[in-house]
């Protein structure tokens, strides 16, 4: 099925797939009418979609190095855009983003700006040039451009630190969703998630991941947009929420003025389960200083341009031209979800707090709220909590607490949508977390198998042996990630943001200057990667252990410090040591021109 003419048939294949998925949703909703239980529907959604991904993964199996590492470099622009969007939008984007906006408003929206603006840097500074280079992995570029095993190895170290931080969060997310949908304990669900992830990537490498990611994008975008549009219409807020929620936004501001923001005494807060919060920040008003906003956005933008699992998606396009366009499509597909998250947060908040709406719970009696079905469900899942602190029997705004995930997971139920939508949302969250985890695990395993094993340890290894090593590493890294995820050390969103900071600390300037500054040399790049990563990590540890920080750089933006050190180190050391030789300079000249052969051969 996946041969020659498969590429030409892509629109048809995925068209049929989308139709099939919509038909499946309809069948499920009919089954719900006929009395299928909520639990069975949840299991069907997750099992059905994961089975489809596994089939795609199996059909994409390959024994060729360039298919395994870069999907044979024949992924068309638009489809690569979808795959990148799925690769990019993680469990955090899907499950946690709308919740973050709901609770933190403007200060959090810096992530939206940062996670999209970064693609401008990807398109203009890096992707087309790395595609021309013809590398298999990001350290492949560093190792060839600067020369030497040490620079290659340093790049692998930075890549592994950043991606591994990220991937534990994603495996954690697949585990959370699998444990809710399949009703099994989290410790086991994590491994169920892991096996699903490996089914997509083991046999086909990048080729398998590409075609499953396209399939996962289709599931996740339907699962995100359908409820947003449905809720908006049901509430009478407007049939196209993105253009029509201005009244709702100003109504929330009105209610904020009326109720005031939540302030609770420490004593009362002790009763509230961990991780739940009240509405303490304005919804649409500017509630952060310019620097707090800009520094977070900047860190996320530079991090975007340094994360290897995103960059390597642009190695799979047929040409340099296609790589550039493909970045545009990626961002377009990401935009569809990101621009909807604030709308979902608005609808969710208004439907809960507006007393004049039938779904509003503020102002109702506590007993009445506690008797609502959905409240009982989500209270049991530890995502909602009410308590009558002042003893007047009525629910006030500062007596209602919710977890961030509930905005995406619970709003459909609150708005009175059928349960089939909740099953769909679970499948979407699973798709988002799986696709990102796949991209990350593959990025790490490929870097170690290609750059450390093949390029440094055993350059004479045959293709078959290389691919065995790559697959063994995939499983080992996956299990390591799952084991750490099962320990639940850091929340999903926190570790995602750290990954961006690590990546930008070590890789942003060595990558960018590799293309844009001919004078950059090996010594400079090694110093930049090493000192950038170490100083970034040291800053994080310092702030985490009670350090005060400086210039308003927090534990979420430590990459700004790390990358500044990296830049200075790289420039100073490069200038103090010898300029790169003529061959390297010529190589940089060739990278800057789209025409002609790639620097590295098709099979290397």
């Amino acid at each position: 099925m996946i041969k020659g003419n498969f590429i030409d048939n892509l629109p048809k294949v995925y068209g049929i797939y989308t139709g099939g998925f919509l038909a499946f949703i309809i069948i499920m909703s009919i089954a719900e009418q006929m009395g299928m239980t909520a639990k069975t529907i949840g299991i069907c959604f997750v099992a059905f979609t994961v089975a489809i991904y596994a089939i795609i993964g199996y059909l994409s199996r390959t024994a060729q190095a360039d298919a395994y590492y870069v999907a044979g470099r024949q992924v068309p622009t638009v489809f690569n855009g979808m795959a990148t969007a799925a690769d990019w939008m993680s469990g955090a984007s899907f499950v946690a983003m709308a919740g973050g906006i709901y609770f933190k408003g403007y200060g959090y929206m810096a992530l939206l700006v940062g996670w999209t603006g970064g693609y401008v840097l990807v398109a203009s500074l890096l992707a087309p040039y790395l595609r021309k280079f013809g590398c298999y992995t990001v350290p492949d570029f560093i190792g060839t451009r600067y020369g030497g095993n040490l620079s290659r190895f340093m790049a692998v170290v930075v890549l592994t630190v950043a991606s591994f931080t990220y991937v534990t969060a994603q495996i954690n997310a697949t585990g959370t969703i699998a444990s809710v949908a399949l009703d099994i304990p989290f410790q086991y669900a994590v491994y169920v998630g892991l096996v699903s992830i490996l089914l997509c990537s083991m046999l086909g490498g990048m080729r398998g991941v590409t075609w499953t990611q396209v399939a996962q994008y289709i599931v996740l975008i339907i699962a995100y947009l359908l409820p947003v549009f449905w809720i908006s219409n049901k509430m009478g807020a407007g049939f196209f929420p993105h253009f029509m929620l201005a009244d709702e936004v100003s109504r929330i501001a009105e209610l904020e003025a009326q109720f005031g923001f939540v302030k609770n005494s420490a004593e009362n807060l002790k009763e509230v389960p961990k991780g739940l919060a009240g509405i303490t920040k304005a919804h649409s008003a500017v509630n952060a200083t310019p620097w707090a906003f800009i520094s977070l956005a900047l860190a996320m933008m530079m991090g975007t341009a340094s994360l290897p699992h995103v960059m390597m998606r642009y190695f799979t396009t047929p040409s340099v031209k296609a790589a550039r366009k493909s970045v545009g499509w990626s961002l377009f597909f990401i935009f569809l979800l990101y621009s909807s998250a604030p709308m979902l947060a608005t609808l969710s908040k208004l439907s809960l707090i507006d007393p004049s709406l039938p779904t509003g719970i503020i102002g109702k009696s506590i007993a009445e709220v506690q008797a609502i079905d959905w409240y009982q469900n989500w209270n049991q899942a530890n995502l909602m909590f009410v308590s009558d602190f002042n003893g007047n029997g009525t629910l006030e705004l500062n007596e209602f607490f919710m977890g961030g995930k509930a905005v995406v997971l619970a709003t459909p139920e609150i708005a009175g949508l059928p349960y089939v939508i909740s099953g769909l949302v679970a499948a979407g969250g699973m798709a988002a977390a799986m696709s990102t985890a796949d991209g990350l695990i593959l990025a790490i395993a490929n870097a170690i198998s290609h750059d450390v094993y093949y390029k440094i340890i055993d350059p004479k290894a045959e293709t078959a042996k290389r691919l065995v090593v790559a697959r063994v590493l995939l499983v080992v890294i996956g299990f390591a990630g799952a084991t750490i995820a099962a320990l639940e050390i850091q929340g999903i969103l926190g570790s995602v943001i750290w990954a961006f900071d690590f990546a930008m600390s070590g890789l942003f300037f060595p990558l960018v200057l590799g293309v844009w500054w001919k004078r950059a040399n090996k010594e400079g790049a090694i110093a930049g990667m090493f000192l950038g990563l170490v100083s970034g990590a040291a800053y994080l540890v310092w702030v985490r252990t009670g350090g005060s920080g400086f210039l308003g750089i927090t534990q979420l933006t430590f990459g700004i410090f790390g990358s500044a050190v990296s830049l200075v180190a790289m420039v100073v050391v490069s200038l103090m040591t010898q300029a790169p030789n003529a061959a390297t300079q010529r190589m940089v000249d060739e990278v800057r021109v789209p025409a002609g052969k790639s620097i590295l051969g098709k099979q290397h």
Partner: protein
Amino acid sequence: MSKQEQHWEKSKGLLMMTLAIWFVFSIGIFLFGAEMNEVTGPFGYPLTYWFTCQGSLGIFVLLIFWFANRQEKIDEEFGFSERGDD
């Protein structure tokens, strides 16, 4: 100046322009977030709020496509574009 140097000069010019627009909508406008939010923006949303939800994001999408087209033109002008289509 060789053809290749001219091509690179033009590409750098385009990069600078792209980064300037990027800077305005990712950083510049948020220096005045509080002031701008007093103004009503498109579709009736407060202006800064609109930029964070849709405006900046949408501008980035358009900016990348614009950049890709301009760069293709530059490559063609100097005969550096790849043969075959995508």
